[in-house]
């Protein structure tokens, strides 16, 4: 086997491999490993920071969410209360308005009835007065002048015209 038989190359193999390894070790340790190790550590710390800040943000977010939910609940309750109050107020107003309107209608009805009644009474009185006046006037004319039929007829017509005129005057 050449690896055991070629004794002459042993010294150079051992020497160069150890020396080369030492040089590679120094080169890698000084120039090659540090940037990569730094990058690894930097990334590790960045990831760790990111995770912790993300967790913090999540906790904050949850807190805000809980607060908002509480606020929302409160707002809902408030809104419900306002709606209820408005509803009650509206109902109260409606009832009040209804009562007022009913009272007004009743009053108007009463007033109208009273007016009708008084107008009727007045009319009746007027009619009675005019009838009496007519009767009195006719009778008066009739009694004063006992004239012929033609004359009496004219007298009657005259008295009727007179009554009508006086009625028209009182109406105006």
């Amino acid at each position, binding site marked *: *086997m*050449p*690896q*055991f038989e*070629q004794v*002459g*190359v*042993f*010294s*150079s*193999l*051992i*020497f*160069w*491999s*150890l020396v*080369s*390894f030492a*040089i*590679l*070790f120094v*080169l*890698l*340790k000084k*120039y*090659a*490993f*540090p*940037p*990569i*190790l*730094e*990058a*690894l550590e*930097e*990334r590790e710390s*960045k990831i760790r920071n990111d995770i912790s800040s993300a967790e913090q943000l999540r906790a904050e977010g949850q807190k805000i969410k809980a607060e908002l939910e509480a606020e929302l609940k409160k707002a809902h309750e408030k809104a419900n209360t306002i709606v209820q109050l408005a509803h009650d107020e509206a109902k109260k107003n409606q009832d009040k308005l209804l009562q007022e309107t009913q009272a007004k209608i009743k009053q108007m009805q009463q007033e109208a009835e009273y007016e009708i009644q008084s107008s009727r009474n007045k009319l009746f009185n007027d009619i009675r007065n005019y009838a009496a006046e007519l009767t009195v006037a006719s009778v008066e004319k009739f009694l004063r002048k006992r004239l012929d039929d033609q004359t009496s007829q004219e007298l009657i017509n005259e008295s009727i015209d007179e009554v009508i005129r006086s009625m028209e005057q009182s109406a105006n």
Partner: protein
Amino acid sequence: MESPLHHFELHPLVHINILGLDLSINKAILAMWAGMAVVFFLFKAAGKRDSSLVPGKLQSVLEIGMEFIRGMVEEFIGKEEGKKYFPFIATVFFFVLACNLIGLVPGSYTITSQLVVTGAFAICIFIMTLFIGFAKHGGHFLSILVPPGVPKIMVPLMVPIEIISMVARPISLSVRLFANMTAGHTVLAVLFGLAMSASLVIGWMPFGFTVIINGLEIAIAFIQAYIFTTLTCVYIGDVINLH
């Protein structure tokens, strides 16, 4: 048919001789340097974009590798202590992986198929663990030779057993990597030799196998780099956290 082990032979390309020591450059060393260069420039290219927070494809792949090794180091050595050893462990992983993978390029060479190389690394790691152990625990480090809960009467028996098991560590570490790499390449060489020597009618079969085995070898390159690195972590972790 030429020997399937033929391609493990090394011939000097540039002759260097210092103090009587032959330090000639050969194919294996060139391949290793190529692998190292790839590793270094990949890392440089990935880190060039000012290590952005959103990584590119290359950076993502390397980061996965780094994270993987970091997890391993933290598991076996410890979170705080591990930081000190991370660059070394990561270099071991990427060095072994690059050497394993570059050998799969046709015409290249897998330096980890040389037992002297894997052995040198294993012995260095072993010696390093001893240094770390003594530096951290002083004389108390020797208690690693006595597993906890062992009756005193058993200590004379346990100490040699523990010494053997300690010494076996670099051996197993180096032989495992060497054997896996050598075996894979030998199988590939045998199959390719068969494909080349047989007629086309039957030759496609071993050639097809070389394709499959090549895929398998890529997986093995990763697995062996992983095992080598994990065991290195375990050995260092053992001497840092005594029992």
